[in-house]
């Protein structure tokens, strides 16, 4: 399982190899220039100004000799100045190149990961989403992706940068003077170890502070959402104390981190400065003996800082590099979940035929049989109503028709074709299914209604909204059709959501329409109004309605009664009312009610 994670990481690097390579080359060039600059200065101080031995390659000195030698240079130091500016500009160009290449590579990594994740999540089977935890998944798709991006595009480069820095420093400095080089690096291992161990050691404090912040936010959130309870019990004082404690705790934990960081920076600065002093003193000592020149001294004093800085960073980077591996694993976990299988040979037949359940048995992953050897026929173009007790498997029936799940035994045919042979998206696009608790997107009402179709006209939206009895409340909203729904917009009631969901389904061309108890939150009058509109609108559409309202059920061409995963009765209203089954019991409530009224009116009410 770890190989897939590593393969993905490798893939991300490989796909952006040119950008990474470019960034690498640019890094090398900038490091080289950074090392050359102090040498130019040293050359000026030693060779041009004091006539000490040169440290430049022969071709440079030949050129200088042709101009008039070091004395000429001493008179014309603007050449050196120009060279310095030139070096800086050159370094600037490459460091820009590095920054840009690095950022493009990094952004490509997150773009690839994000799109991969989004696409994959959409293709995961329905069953996966029934169990999925939204918060955790969003976290994986956002902050874990960010961690991986940072690691690949920045931290990896920083580590490479630090090591190259050390390599170059050793290369140059050892040529200058071996003993000073060794003394100049004497504290480097100590600094590295200190940085690394320190962050390993304090990392738990960061976690504690994160937790304290989470706690404070939680107290705050609870207070704000529970503001009515707080006020109703007059507990403002207590809440202030409770928040005060969480707030104080967060302050302490954050202050502790600041203190630790203060210790860290002060100590590592002390190490760096001591190292730099040691280098200076050593240089001075050697210079007095005449072993080295002022130029060498400036080279060492400026290199020593160039070396210490990345090492100080390195400890920190290494100590949290482990995070990216964890993040990659969390991302890969989502990507490893199997998608709905592809169907290259699927067909797209007409769906205007009878829907037949032929000895269908279906169970969820927990092995509980939901539908047991179930057989029934929904005649083409008719309206069939399903009545069933809680947990009888009504919803599973409609989910199976849209192939959101597949039955374990038996088969479902539409117009004689086994639906397993029908292209999944084609089937779903021709079968309009309205869920009981529909999800609306955070877009405007108009966009929500038109969400399932690519191009739509105003008239189509208007008609669909009219038929779904949603027009009145839409027009009453502040901005009408342009009202924003969801997290950023208005909250709709359950019944309003159901009506928008019906309207958006009506916008599609449906051969089959299914209402999974999706009128439950609207009142009986609106319910009737919507059904009347449906009848006008889609005369030859096969319609399945799950409901517990007798009025709704009674007007269907065929009523199926489901109990415990089986169809126990079927027939028309007239056939079922006298059967003594579930349907007739519900129908008889009417009679019971009349009886009760008689009681109430004669004044014998028991309550």
């Amino acid at each position, binding site marked *: 399982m770890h190989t897939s994670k590593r393969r993905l990481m490798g893939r991300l690097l490989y796909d952006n190899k040119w950008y990474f390579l470019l960034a690498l080359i640019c890094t090398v060039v900038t490091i080289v220039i950074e090392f050359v600059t102090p040498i130019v200065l040293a050359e000026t101080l030693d060779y041009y100004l004091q006539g000490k031995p040169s440290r430049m390659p022969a071709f440079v000195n030949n050129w200088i000799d042709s101009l008039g030698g070091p004395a000429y240079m001493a008179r014309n130091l603007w050449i050196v100045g120009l060279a310095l500016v030139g070096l800086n500009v050159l370094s600037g160009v490459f460091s820009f190149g590095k920054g840009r290449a690095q950022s493009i590579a990094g952004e490509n990594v997150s773009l690839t990961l994000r799109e991969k994740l989004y696409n994959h999540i959409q293709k995961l089977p329905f069953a996966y989403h029934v169990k999925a935890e939204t918060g955790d998944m969003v976290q994986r798709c956002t902050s874990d992706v960010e961690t991986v991006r940072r690691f690949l595009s920045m931290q990896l480069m920083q580590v490479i940068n630090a090591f190259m820095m050390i390599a170059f420093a050793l290369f140059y400095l050892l040529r200058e003077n071996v003993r000073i080089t060794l003394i100049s690096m004497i504290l480097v291992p100590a600094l590295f170890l200190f940085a690394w161990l320190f962050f390993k050691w304090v990392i738990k404090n960061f976690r504690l502070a994160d937790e304290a912040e989470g706690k404070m936010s939680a107290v705050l959130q609870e207070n704000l959402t529970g503001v009515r309870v707080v006020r109703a019990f007059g507990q403002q004082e207590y809440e202030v104390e409770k928040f*005060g404690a969480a707030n104080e705790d967060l302050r302490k934990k954050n202050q502790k981190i600041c203190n630790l960081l203060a210790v860290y920076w002060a100590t590592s600065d002390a190490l760096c400065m001591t190292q730099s002093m040691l280098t200076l003193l050593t240089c001075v000592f050697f210079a007095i003996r005449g072993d080295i020149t002022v130029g060498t001294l400036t080279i060492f004093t400026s290199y020593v800082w160039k070396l210490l800085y990345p090492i100080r960073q390195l400890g920190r980077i290494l100590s949290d590099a482990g995070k990216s591996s964890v993040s990659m694993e969390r991302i890969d976990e989502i990507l490893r979940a199997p998608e709905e299988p592809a169907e290259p040979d699927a067909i797209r037949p007409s769906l205007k035929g009878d829907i037949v359940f032929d000895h269908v048995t279906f169970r969820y992953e927990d092995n509980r049989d939901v539908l047991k050897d179930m057989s029934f026929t929904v005649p083409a173009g008719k309206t069939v109503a399903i009545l069933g007790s809680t947990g009888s498997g009504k919803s599973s029936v409609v989910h199976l028709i849209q192939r959101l799940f597949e039955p374990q035994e038996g088969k479902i045919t539409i117009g004689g074709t086994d639906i397993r042979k029908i292209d999944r998206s084609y089937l779903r696009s021709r079968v309009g299914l309205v869920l009981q608790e529909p999800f609306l997107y955070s877009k405007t009402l108009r966009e929500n209604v038109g969400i399932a179709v690519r191009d739509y006209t105003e008239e189509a939206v208007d008609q669909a909204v009219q038929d779904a009895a949603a027009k009145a409340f839409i027009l009453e909203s502040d901005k009408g059709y342009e009202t924003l729904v969801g997290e950023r917009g208005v909250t709709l009631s359950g019944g309003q959501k159901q009506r928008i969901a019906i309207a958006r389904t009506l916008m599609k061309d449906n051969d089959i329409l299914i209402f999974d108890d999706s009128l439950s939150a609207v009142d009986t009058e609106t319910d009737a109004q919507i059904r009347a509109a449906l009848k006008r609108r889609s005369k030859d559409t096969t319609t399945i309605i799950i409901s517990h309202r007798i009025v709704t059920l009674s007007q269907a061409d065929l009523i199926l009664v489901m109990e415990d995963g089986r169809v126990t009765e079927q027939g028309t209203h007239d056939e079922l009312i006298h059967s003594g089954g579930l349907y007739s019991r519900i129908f008889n409530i009417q009679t019971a009610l009349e009886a009760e009224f008689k009681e109430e009116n004669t004044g014998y009410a028991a309550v």
Partner: protein
Amino acid sequence: MQQFEEQDYTKRFSLSLWKKILGYAKEYHKDLYRLALCMGISAGCDVVFPLMTSYAIDHFIPTLDHAGSTQGVPVFVIVYLLLLAVQVYTIFRFLYLGGKVETGVCYTIRKRAFRKLQELPFSYYDRMPVGYLMSRMTSDTQRLAETIGWSLLDLAWGSVMIVAASITMFSLNWKLTLAVLIVVPPLAVISWWFQQRILHAYRAVRKTNSKITGAFNEGIMGAKTTKTLVREEMNMEEFTALTHEMKRSSVRAASLSSVYLPIVVSLGSLATAYALWQGGQLVTVGGMTLGVLQVFVNYTVQFFQPIRDIANTFAEMQSAQAAAERVMTLLETAPDIVDTPEVEAVFGDNFHPKKENWPALRGDVEFCHVDFQYKEGEKVLSDFNLKINAGETIALVGPTGAGKSTVVNLICRFYEPTAGEIKIDGVNYKERSQLWLQSNLGYVLQEPRLFSGTIRDNIRYAKLDATDEEVEHAARLVNAEPFILKMEKGYDTDVGEGGSRLSTGEKQLISFARAILADPRIFVLDEATSSVDTQTEQIIQHAIQKVLSGRTSFIIAHRLSTIRTADRILVIDGGKIIESGTHQQLLRQKGAYYNLYTNQFQEEQAMEILGGAAQA
């Protein structure tokens, strides 16, 4: 939630706003001075270190104009070590102080804002989504504190660094210094220009980033709906547009930053080059020592850093100003339900009640010609009159939006009438403190809300000084004890955040126990419509009866069993009482109540047969 963070912000730097904010950081003023002092010393050290190197070159090392000598090396080492010690100590101090100010300001502002939030009326909460308030209290406050803690530090460091380096350079060679300093103004202008753009670019990145988070959230929550509507392709198209926008804006921001630094460094190197050229020439004629030349070169290399820091600080402050304005708005919002000073003098305020002066509450409630509106021009109640005697149980029924919740909100004084008055025990309730009324109030919400903590903590919420025995007694009264004792740790079971580890029915029972513990005189119940099984339903009905007995009760009722037992049923529609009476009386009228009742009866019975619960 993040979308609220990126709203409009003022462009102009507002000194008065920052003054006001510094007023909130009063307790840290001393620390701020110390902080600035530390920064100054530290910057001073940074200026002196190159001088040390220069001294070493000029005094110890043999050069063209003087021979080497070891004289003064011990003193040099001691001075260097002293400087090092001072520098290390100031670094430690300013990091410590900066942290103290940052965390402290954050703490103080949060504390004050939280207290303010406890006083603001519900009308405020109606306008402000919780997410909005959350980001005011968390990220905005954090941002503000960071700015106060660290920006000042950067400003102090940068200015001292520039001034000290300039002075040193002037004293060494003023002509050369003048020439070198010419690069400073263009450096400052360029820095300012870039820092602003960089900041804007990153803001655009954050904005897109929060859109992407939103898209993932929606993609995952709406995955099932997406499948049924076959919207995968269109979703993907929209998402791809977002990811590409993200890439574009991120690369733009990164490019801006990586073009800025080289420009500044190159510009700075002009000064270095000039110093080297002119200084070098001076050295050859003996007008300057090698050490001094080295110092000049050193300073010019370091010069751009403080300028960049200052430019960055101003840009940061400008953007933090938006956060500051939002936090200040919250802190300065005046609550519109307040007790008058006279009332406060007698009965105390929300945090310091004077309970000894509180009269006992009997429970007579009267609405006298009450008008009410949430929004200007949209009257919910008008000339509403109602008289309820102590101990009566009132059921409020009617369609959604009819005004039932408004009536209850007014009784609880969560809102106050826009005209007319509400009397409790014959006295306008504005003449008593809010806390007096609310301490005598029992309130059970439609969707019961618990706080994280144990079951015991949650019941005790109504009366913090209740003994364990009292808590358990309350639980027994509403028949909640059997299920509580079945839990692993009994009363000490953790309910999870917002009570998430309990079922809806269990949460309701606990909220009943909580309400009954305080022994309130007025009881308000917004009856739940959500599903519970038949057995729990019966226990809840029993609990309701217990809670209601002997108190003035208002129920926004959905269940017939609750409605039937009320002393009086009020049918409310369009902000008016359209029918009023007992269950039997109203049924006989065959009006609105009759229709409502028959519909509800059928729904409830059908659901009972089918094994679920009613959905009103």
